[in-house]
């Protein structure tokens, strides 16, 4: 029976075992993989169950597994809908085949170089992914795949449309098995790390991810590069299996095949992908009599899957140690740290804006906005709807670039910095319309935001080495502490989107605080709350303000809350600052009463 704590861990991505268990599990995994290989080869030698024919099919299963897992990294985990996977495969296939056939290179370096060449392709394709999303990205990647194919078609050195025959048949079961296993392990390790959480955060909500300090550019490109690399390796294996390649083998249909695998297996499930690779490879063999209908069955499968089981065979679930009862319990450390997160040596003022204005088309949403926030201040930003309050937040956090003026934070000009850089420097925010990673667990929401000093590298994540284990443990422990501070620790394993409204607001604040800010921007935290909840919120904000030694800027319409909480209030109207004063003076200010408060508030 799995305990509550284990369940929490199981539902969250990338919780780590302790060092000792880590080693044991690594050994078990390796042993299992080796045993699997010897089992297949043994059975084949003995002529039991696995005939030559089945061994061949297993080779195709392996190649399809690599294709599927690598595409799932891009599509399923990072949420970047790519339809150009065949293009990466083609690059790998052609480069590797060229090296072995024409340059006479050994297989291993040929595969590697093929993978690297495909990864470079991934880098190029990743660039439009920075500006495009969803359907547009799908079409653009499809276009890239086609362009790669057309380029090969025009390359005489590899035979152009005639193709490249006589490629040495280097691809053995051992090669495919080893490469598929390596792909699965590497992608799995990558996903279950802080890098993997960043990828999933991008899938869930790119804007929120960016403001929580995830450098979305870097991670999207990383997903494309790593995914393309393995597709290239798959291409190399493919070429040395089939021994004859031509551009038509890598058309749109090849990309669709990979898509079918991940859709069937589950977008965001590695084990599901492996399972689906088996199904998709064996199915046509089993249906040999209906060979003509293969594509019809494929296409019906795609449609019916989407209509009746859109999450695939496995959804985003995985099958692994945990399901076998070998999982690890969450770290037992339960001491509340509660040390000040802020690096509080900065001299006041913390934040200064000089003449900031923001135009949308012809509309000036904010004009000549000057504000100074001093260390430890708790300031309210109020004004009627459309006054430009959220726009100010967007400028401060880098989501909008100011049309003119500048923003200085702790002495640095942050006017043109990216949201993730600004977050790194110490500004965190919440959103007016809550933007959690709503399909992820409560714990993961906080863990994505959490960063230590000198975070471990991607290599360490893939190899499960170096700082990885200790840092993961610390991230998990600290994140649980944050949840406890906000009264959410007993809901750590719940899906964030299913929390009640008030709890979602609290989680959003916990997540923002987990990034370790010095300045916290709260956008209408009391919206939709009843008086009781608002009162609790008031206490909560006061408390975190003190505890974390924060400077807080707060947008709020609940005047009662603002008056009680804030030391100073700035009033915006039609983008202009009409008052900046202590609460007691604000309520007497004629312009503020006319613009916003109305007579009865006085």
């Amino acid at each position, binding site marked *: 029976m799995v305990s509550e704590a284990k369940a929490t861990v199981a539902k969250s991505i990338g919780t780590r075992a302790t060092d000792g268990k880590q080693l044991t599990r690594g050994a078990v995994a390796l042993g299992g993989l080796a045993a699997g290989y010897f089992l297949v080869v043994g059975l084949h030698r003995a002529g039991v169950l696995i005939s030559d024919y089945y061994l061949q099919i297993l080779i195709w299963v392996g190649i399809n597994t690599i294709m599927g897992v690598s595409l799932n990294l891009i599509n399923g985990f990072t949420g970047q809908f790519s339809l150009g996977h065949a293009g990466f495969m083609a690059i790998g296939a052609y480069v590797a085949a060229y090296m072995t056939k024409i340059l006479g290179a050994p297989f291993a370096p040929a595969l590697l170089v093929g993978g690297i060449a495909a990864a470079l392709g991934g880098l190029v394709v990743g660039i439009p992914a920075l*500006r495009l999303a969803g*359907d547009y990205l*799908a079409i653009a990647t499809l*276009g*890239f795949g*086609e362009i790669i194919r057309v*380029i090969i078609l025009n390359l005489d050195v590899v035979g152009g449309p005639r193709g490249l025959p006589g490629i040495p048949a280097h691809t053995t079961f051992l090669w495919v098995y080893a490469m598929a296993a390596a792909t699965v392990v590497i992608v799995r390790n990558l996903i279950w790390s802080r890098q993997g959480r960043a990828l999933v955060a991008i899938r869930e909500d790119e804007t929120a991810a960016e403001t929580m300090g995830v450098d979305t550019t870097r991670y999207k490109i990383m997903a494309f590069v790593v995914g393309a690399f393995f597709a290239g390796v798959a291409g190399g294996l493919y070429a040395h299996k089939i021994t004859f390649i031509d551009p038509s083998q890598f058309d*749109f249909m090849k990309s*669709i095949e990979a898509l079918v695998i991940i859709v069937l297996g589950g977008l965001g499930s590695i084990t599901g992908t492996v399972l689906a690779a088996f199904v998709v490879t064996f199915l046509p063999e089993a249906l040999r009599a209906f060979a003509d209908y293969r594509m019809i069955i494929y296409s019906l499968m795609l449609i019916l899957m989407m*209509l009746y089981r859109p999450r695939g065979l496995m959804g985003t679930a995985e099958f692994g140690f945990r399901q076998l009862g070998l999982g690890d319990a969450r770290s037992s450390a339960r001491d509340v740290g509660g040390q000040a997160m802020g690096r509080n040596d900065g001299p006041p003022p913390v934040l200064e804006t000089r003449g900031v204005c923001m135009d949308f088309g012809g509309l000036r949403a904010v004009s000549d906005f000057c504000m100074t926030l001093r260390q430890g201040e708790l300031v309210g930003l109020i004004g009627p709807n459309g006054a430009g309050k959220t726009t100010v937040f967007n400028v401060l956090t880098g989501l909008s670039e100011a049309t003119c003026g500048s923003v200085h934070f702790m002495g640095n000009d942050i006017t043109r910095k990216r949201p993730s850089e600004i977050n790194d420097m110490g500004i965190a925010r919440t959103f007016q319309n809550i933007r959690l990673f709503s399909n992820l667990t409560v714990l993961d929401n906080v863990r994505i935001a959490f960063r230590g000093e000198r975070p471990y590298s991607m290599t360490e994540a893939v190899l499960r080495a170096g700082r990885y284990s200790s840092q993961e443990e610390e991230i998990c422990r600290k994140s649980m502490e944050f949840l406890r501070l906000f009264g959410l620790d007993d809901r750590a394993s719940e899906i964030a989107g299913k929390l009640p409204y008030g709890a979602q607001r609290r989680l959003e604040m916990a997540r923002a605080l987990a990034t370790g800010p010095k300045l916290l921007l709260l956008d209408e935290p009391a919206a939709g709350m009843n008086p009781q909840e608002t009162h609790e919120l008031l206490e909560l904000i006061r408390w975190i303000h003190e505890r974390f030694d924060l400077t807080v800027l707060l947008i709020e319409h609940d005047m009662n809350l603002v008056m009680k909480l804030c030391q100073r209030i700035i009033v915006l109207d039609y983008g202009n600052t009409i008052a900046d004063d202590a609460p007691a003076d604000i309520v007497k200010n004629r312009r503020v009463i006319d613009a916003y408060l109305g007579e009865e508030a006085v």
Partner: protein
Amino acid sequence: MPGGLDISMVVQQLVNGLALGSVYALIALGYTMVYGIVRLINFAHGDIFMLGAYYGYFAITMFKIPFALALPLAMGLAAVTGMAVERLAYKPLRQAPRIASLITAIGVSLLLQNLGLKFFEARPRPYPRIIPMVVWDVGGVVVSNVQLIMLALAIALMVLISLIVYRTKIGKAMRAVSFDKDAARLMGIDADMVIGVTFALGSALAAAGGMLVGFYYNRISPTMGAMYGLKAFVAAVVGGIGIVPGAMLGGLIMGVAEVFVIAFVSSMLKDAIAFAILIVILLFKPAGLLGRAVREKV
């Protein structure tokens, strides 16, 4: 043709490009209307175009129906097919994540194409010669009656569709649903019906495009939908997806660009140019030539 660009050669390619582009425009209209209303890239649209060409083919060869009647018949059948696809495959997914509909659309496209391969045979078929080809030489530029008929028909249909979208009640309902489906529904508009009509109109135009392609190039095949469909989609994006005049502009640009690449660069690159244009447009003017950028509200 002797080396160098002579002016009549350029004009000649322009004429050919406009003829081809008018077909892209017809198909692009369907993409753009459907995208405008349900925010879905209807990958199956290219295959409806293919089916339309075959409906016309069978009407003319098997049932000996004259072209003037076969055209509306094929358009009608395609409209029904398009509506059926919408009802069976897309409607159940209207609340699902966009990616689910997109994958379904790819599935439907593959299904139609492979059903075509199965039942219409894979080999390309010669399209019946409906009228004898007449060719005029105007100052070194060759123009055929087929090209003129094609252009005239395409323009007539585009005018018709513009009138429907901008001048009729159903057109107004379409624009309302496109703008805000829920609000439109609250105003008493039967959104499902409007979406069905949109698919029907788009599919009918695609069928007309299919028959014109058969008419012009004299051959059709079950796989023709993929490339024409993709290029027409690119045309829609280039013009600004969801914008009716944008689809026409984009279609013409696509046609001319492709013909110019074939004539002056390399015929091998004719399919790559579409995607190259697409990527450039998406990177520098993602909302398309006639579109306006929409920012995500935070």
